[in-house]
């Protein structure tokens, strides 16, 4: 223990602690509040009377959630999408970043492809043309419409390319002298040392795919095919107007804040589970990949 800390440094420590705790609380409170609401009485939730502790604790909303088979269907679709999408992203990013990390002397078309990618990153065709392409390829209402349009994330390609560039050339030379093929060099030399970068990219993909609701909204014509976030996004319905008495009985059900909270809580669990496993790579990966030698 160091006891001889000066007053200023202790003050500084205190302030830093206070700020960090405050920020942690600011991030944590909305989640705790959501969890508390999901366990509360429906009317208390409608009255905004729930803070961090459930009011009239009950499991009704979770009981209703278990019976909501569309929720679970969408949940599975999202899981499938994440697995498929992330695998596809990783494969394509690696296969694209490796050749691009070579100089244009070694890979003649490199500059063309690089400019092409950057052009694509800056200018896109827009939503309607994209939809028309996906439509004409008959991808509508299939899982592929969720993973194929974004299969090559250019930003990640550049990230990994820069990391590959920073790998010392002597490593590659050594491998070649020992008789390793080009693919062998990629898979036996480059991939193992770029695991942190790959973890980062994987995390980007997983989070991106899991949280994206918009493509589901556009490319899915059947509500049964919605991924989870699209399903949840659709729960937000604005009610101020009723044109017919027969719509009234739907009102109370739509305004069910506790059930919606339960859905959101369950939908965040997968990411909460994945984060700790990947997070240790996350910070180092970002730094290593983005700094060029």
């Amino acid at each position, binding site marked *: 223990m160091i006891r001889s800390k000066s007053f200023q440094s202790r003050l500084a420590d205190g302030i830093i602690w206070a700020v960090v705790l405050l920020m942690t609380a600011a991030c944590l409170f909305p989640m705790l509040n959501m969890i508390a609401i999901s366990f509360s009485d429906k009317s208390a939730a409608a009255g905004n009377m729930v803070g961090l502790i459930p009011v009239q604790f009950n499991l009704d909303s979770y009981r209703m959630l278990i019976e909501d088979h569309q929720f679970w269907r969408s949940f599975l679709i999202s899981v499938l999408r994440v697995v498929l999408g992330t695998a596809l992203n990783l494969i394509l990013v690696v296969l694209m970043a490796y050749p691009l990390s070579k100089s244009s002397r070694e890979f003649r078309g490199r500059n063309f492809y690089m400019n092409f990618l950057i052009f694509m990153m800056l200018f896109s065709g827009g939503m309607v043309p994209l939809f028309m392409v996906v439509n004409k390829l008959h991808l509508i209402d299939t899982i592929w419409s969720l993973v194929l349009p974004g299969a090559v994330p250019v930003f990640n390609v550049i990230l990994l390319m820069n990391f590959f560039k920073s790998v010392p050339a002597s490593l590659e030379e050594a491998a070649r002298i020992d008789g390793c093929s080009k693919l062998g060099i990629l898979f036996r030399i480059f991939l193992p040392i770029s695991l942190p970068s790959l973890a980062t990219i994987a995390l980007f993909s997983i989070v991106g795919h899991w949280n994206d609701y918009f493509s589901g909204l556009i490319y899915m014509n059947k509500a049964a095919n919605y991924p989870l976030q699209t399903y949840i996004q659709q729960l937000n319905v604005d009610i101020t*107007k009723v044109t017919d008495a027969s719509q*009234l009985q739907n009102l109370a059900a739509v305004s069910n804040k506790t059930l919606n909270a339960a859905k959101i809580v369950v939908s965040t669990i997968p990411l909460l589970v994945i984060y700790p496993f990947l997070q240790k790579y996350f910070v180092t990966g970002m730094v290593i990949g983005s700094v060029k030698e």
Partner: protein
Amino acid sequence: MRKSVAYVLVGIMGMSMLLTGCSGQKEAEKSVEHEKTEAETTPYGKYEETVVYTVGKNTPGSPRFPEGDDYENNAYTRYMLEELNIQNKNEFEAATGDAYNQKVSMAIATGKIPDVMMVDRTTLKQLVDNDMIADLTESYEQCASDRIKEMYDSYGGRALDMATFDGKLMALPSTACDNVPTFLWIRQDWIDEVGMDAPATLDDLEKILTAFRDKDPGNNGAGKTIPLAISRSIGGSYGALFQADNIMAIFGSYPRQWLKDESGNVFYGSTSDETKEALGFLADWYKKKLIDPQIAVRDDIESTIVNGQCGAFFGPWWAPDYPLNDARKVDEKADWRPYIISGKGDGAITAYTQNPASEYYVVRKEFEHPEILPKIASLLCDKLVYEDYNYEPIVAYNKANVDSGVKPVGILVNYSTATSDMYERIQKAIDGKLDPEELNIDDYSQYLKCSDYLKHPDEPSPDEWSGYMSRMVGAKLMYETEVTGVDPVYFGQTRSMKLKWANLNKLEDEAFIKIVTGEEPVDYFDTFVSTWKSTGGDSIVAEVEEEIAQQ
């Protein structure tokens, strides 16, 4: 090298254009004349072979289907298959609102629209202009049931006029029944607590709200009570919750409505001198802290009502169902009551009327069975409601709280007096003049709540209270109140509105809230009006006049 790529691209584009052109023609040739069968000329005639029609389905927030059912296979679709031998196939499904509208735009952009879909008025016009939808005049004549025609006629022709272009009926609108007047809903227990009488005029109301503010009858703590809650948009949304329309109408102001003055000139209600006066009045109440001090940022007014912070709001007859039902569950003593606030206190009020056509259902031009739409409307809005209301699977749906929005075609046609009629029917059933068994499913469940309420009116359950307060007290008050209707003269969207209306709306919203909250003085209204006029308002007024002249 680059040139050849360009040639290839141009070639591909040309070819695809040719291809789409061809397929368009083929479809047109398909529709050949043939002898019409009984099914094609009567409301309830059953097709011999199953007719499959594609639908653009606008879906409710959460349908709550029982296991195994979906939008193409549920109690309603099976009922329709059984009765008419028709089956829907959904081209797309999307939540009502932006998501659905986006799908419709995409479908129109790609030139492939479903056989039946719901559109708003702007899109309807676009479809008519591009000749993409079928003329329904003849099929409506033949295949709409008498009661459906009676229902449309109860709006004095205004509902169908909205869907008629050059004398041709191009769509069937959903009707929006009369839902005015809205009332002042106020905490009777608070009024009693502060020892005052029920309000009838604005002066009465001001005194009561002042007492709410000062005496804190709800024990919310000093300064926490919200005497009157009003929506951020202030007013102009017909029959909706939290509008200040009742107050503004006393000043002769009808915000956000297109009206004609005495000399026949069209003007926009939000820019009238009366609106200025009404906003000034509200600003005064805001200054006195009678209106929610957080009005500008309040998202969730319902919560302040449920948790007992709020003492009064303006809302329609169904407010006890939502949000007061939750308020009642939180506090059994919350005794919300409706009152009419009128200028002179005699209970006679004016209110603007609404567009009787709330949404439009159209049929694709080349579809072989355009009569399917009036047939569906007749089946779902007439036969199901008035004859087959005991149809077991749908009764079971209602009991399981399945959202009625899961119908393949959500068209709703009803009498303009639907709300008052409902009150009359339930009242008769309670008085024993009508056999409750003859009530339709919705009325019957409300009748049960009301009669249960009457058995022990001192301690009703929240649901019994909601049923009674909305149907027997709210709807009754609506039925008995003398309303002078002010009819807006235009509901559509003109050419320049497409570009400018969003901005003008924003300008209007901001001006209203700034004036009410005192951020700008009342005279700022004149600045707002001149900006409104110069940034497109004037030309839109001219366009509206032009379109009215054409009608």
